[in-house]
């Protein structure tokens, strides 16, 4: 309903009409953080194609997407969690735990599919533990998931010690490394695409998604509008654990390796990418396509720089600077906008001071 507004309504009780949007569709599409990150991603790809040798080889695409697939997957539920102003730092430990479970159960002679499903359910259970402590007991998610980060990792390492399990059915390891026929794109991108579409619909096109933004911006007003804040967050942590469990199974198969210290530190890579993608750490802001672009940006930049012979510590420095700049630019933009609004407010105040019409 994009009715156009006529001249200001006179003082009688006429029906007002409203513009749906203050800006043109083009401006809404192009002038936002998500568009900026996508633009930056395209620019990095363009430059890399032009100057980095071998960047245009299909193998680069395959390895890049394979490597960042776990981050892409986990970033989906992480986005929803950060939108509600919470955080889940335990995801990488859940990946490790799930990986170890996959290994142990396979070694114990379980059919691989059953072992994998069990490992994913262990991830779900980890999410339940987080969700229970955060929403039922009422502890802050930062503290809880720092704790379970150590706890889940501890269990994972404790179960396998320093050994690694490397024997997995070939059918499954091959499947994990398979590309979509005729493309350099790894097969894992199919389940990722399905999940990404599912999460995007959930976040952007459902009443549930609306309630997430409301929680992130004003928990109290959300509760007053009938949002069950506790149950909603509980569900998000369960989703996060489950997806991390799935990522753990994939990780194990990709590298044919189940170890307690798999994916150590990945939680920070995920959160960095989510924030870079335009999600506000204070909740209530962000969109899923921005997050996916953010993960791809960090991955692509790293891959291109590695191919150009840059050492990994320098890559870390560059990624870090990028992240800080993105956060600073967000604050800067918000500050500029506030200034503009207050300037408008002052103008309005001045005109209101002139004699009011009857």
């Amino acid at each position: 309903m994009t009715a156009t507004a006529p001249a200001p309504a006179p003082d009688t009780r006429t029906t007002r009409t409203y513009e749906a949007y203050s800006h043109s569709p083009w401006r809404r599409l192009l002038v936002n953080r998500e568009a900026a990150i996508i633009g930056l991603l395209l620019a990095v790809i363009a430059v890399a194609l032009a100057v980095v040798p071998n960047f245009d080889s299909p193998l680069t695409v395959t390895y890049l997407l394979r490597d960042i697939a776990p981050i892409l997957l986990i970033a989906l539920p992480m986005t929803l969690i950060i939108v509600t102003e919470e955080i889940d730092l335990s995801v990488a430990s859940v990946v490790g735990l799930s990986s170890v479970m996959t290994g142990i159960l396979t070694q114990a002679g379980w059919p691989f599919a059953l072992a994998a499903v069990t490992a994913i359910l262990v991830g779900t259970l980890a999410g339940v533990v987080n969700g229970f402590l955060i929403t039922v007991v009422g502890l802050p998610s930062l503290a809880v998931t720092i704790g379970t980060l150590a706890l889940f990792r501890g269990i994972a390492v404790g179960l396998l010690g320093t050994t690694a399990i490397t024997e997995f059915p070939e059918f499954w390891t091959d499947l994990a490394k398979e590309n979509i026929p005729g493309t350099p794109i790894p097969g894992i991108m199919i389940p990722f695409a399905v999940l990404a579409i599912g999460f995007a619909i959930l976040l952007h096109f459902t009443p549930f998604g609306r309630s997430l933004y409301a929680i992130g911006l004003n928990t109290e007003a959300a509760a007053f509008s009938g949002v069950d804040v506790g149950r909603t967050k509980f569900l998000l942590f369960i989703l996060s654990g489950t997806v991390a469990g799935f990522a753990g199974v994939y990780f194990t198969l990709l590298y044919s390796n189940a170890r307690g210290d798999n994916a150590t530190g990945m939680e920070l890579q995920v959160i960095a990418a989510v924030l870079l993608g335009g999600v506000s750490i204070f909740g209530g802001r962000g969109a899923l396509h921005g997050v996916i672009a953010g993960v791809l940006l960090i991955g692509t930049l790293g891959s291109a720089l590695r191919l150009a012979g840059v050492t990994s510590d320098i890559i870390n420095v560059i990624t870090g600077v990028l992240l800080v700049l993105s956060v600073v630019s967000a604050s800067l933009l918000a500050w500029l906008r506030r200034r503009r609004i207050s300037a408008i407010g002052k103008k309005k105040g001045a005109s209101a001071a002139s004699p009011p019409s009857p």
Partner: protein
Amino acid sequence: MPVEIAASPPAPPALELSKVVKSFGAVVALRSGTITLEQGSIHALIGENGAGKSTLVKIIAGLYRRDAGSFRLRGEEVDFHTTAQSKAAGIAVIYQEPTLFPDLSVTENIFMGRQPTNRFGRIDRKAMRAEATEIFARLGVSMDPDRITEGLSIADQQIIEIAKAISLDARVLIMDEPTAALSGVEVERLFAVARSLRDEGRALMFISHRFDEVFALCDTVTVMRDGSYIATESIAETSVDELVRQMVGRDVAELFPKLPAEVGDDVLVVEGLTRTGVFHDIGFTVRAGEIVGLAGLVGAGRSEVARAIFGVDPYESGSVRLGGRALPKGNPRVAMARGLALVPEDRRKQGLVLDESVSRNVTLAIRDSLATAGLLTNRAENAAAAVWASRLEVKTAALDAEAGTLSGGNQQKLVLGKWLATRPKVLIVDEPTRGIDVGTKAEVHRLLSELAQQGMAILMISSELPEVLGMADRVLVMREGYLTGEFPRAEATPEAVMFAATAEKEDAK
């Protein structure tokens, strides 16, 4: 040249405010603040909520600057820009809830920021402790100067604030509703302290809603109403009835187009609702087509009752029935589905998501019913939002403008629209016109009246007596967590309602 009168003039008043004006934007909080505090005397300041008492106190405390009028201290014109200046001039304000440092000792709190030092430049704990002990002795209260203030009662904390004021040798003490949270014994002790300060020649100002206390303690009383000075009386020459009349004596007819409505069945039935320490045994009914006013002072527990009924707050016992069916506790979602809506007290914190668009705010409470096959689009939201925004004549540039950019009155309309969009059977509105301009206020009143006429049951909580009396078919009154009165429209006089809201009653404890 005027000649100085040689004969000893009467001592100038300790503090004198005359025709002080303070406005915030278009809202005039104080029209003519006038009060004179004499040395060695206790002066009461009374008035309804919104009468301008707090603004007056804040001007004296240096928190606000007056726009006009005169402010004299011992005969000299003063103009405070900061609270520090006010303190330095010998004024101390003791608030209802003192703000002490909980981890520091009583003594350290008294001398915070101006600790005496010995000749080595270190804090002289001995001197500090001795002075604190001496002050408590003078006040006649027993208090361990070394104990940590955390866990002290509000009464004890107030005593510490008073001790601080005395150690600063404050000549003017202002106590803003100090007894609201005190027990009977504690009130007595506070009064004893206040009297001893008066006898030392200090000037005291005492703000209270409790007439018995005003009559027990004070020498003179000033009444304010609608930001204006009404009268100053000697306590010996006035009465409760007289003061109540002066507090409310305004024309109730300025307003409110109450339309006749057909009253139907009981829709909302509340019985024995209790949450210990907050509200006790609250029972009432609201019928279709009826506006029931819930009056009382701020802090009487009215909003808490509304929140418990709606389900965002818990309650311990009692029941809520909506349209004949019991409503489960603590479940706003079910309450909404059954046709209950609550327009909360604080629109900025509870009513709206200020950083979210107008459109999403209007549709937040109807997000489920607005979805088709579980999917919700901007288009559907904008369409619904446009309907309700235009029905309430919300002024906004576009539907995607953030709610926080709207004016207070338009924000209030937005909250009303958000809840009317749920098409409720029962609408609870908590302070529906607080802080909005007169024009919008009239619009809100007209709207509520129309809704009742269409058969909605409305419970209206308001601290503005004229609003309650003008709008309501029936008036309920709460005081300190208890329902203390119920009046049909014809019997709801300002005096009767004010009396139920303030005076101690025999049958309620």
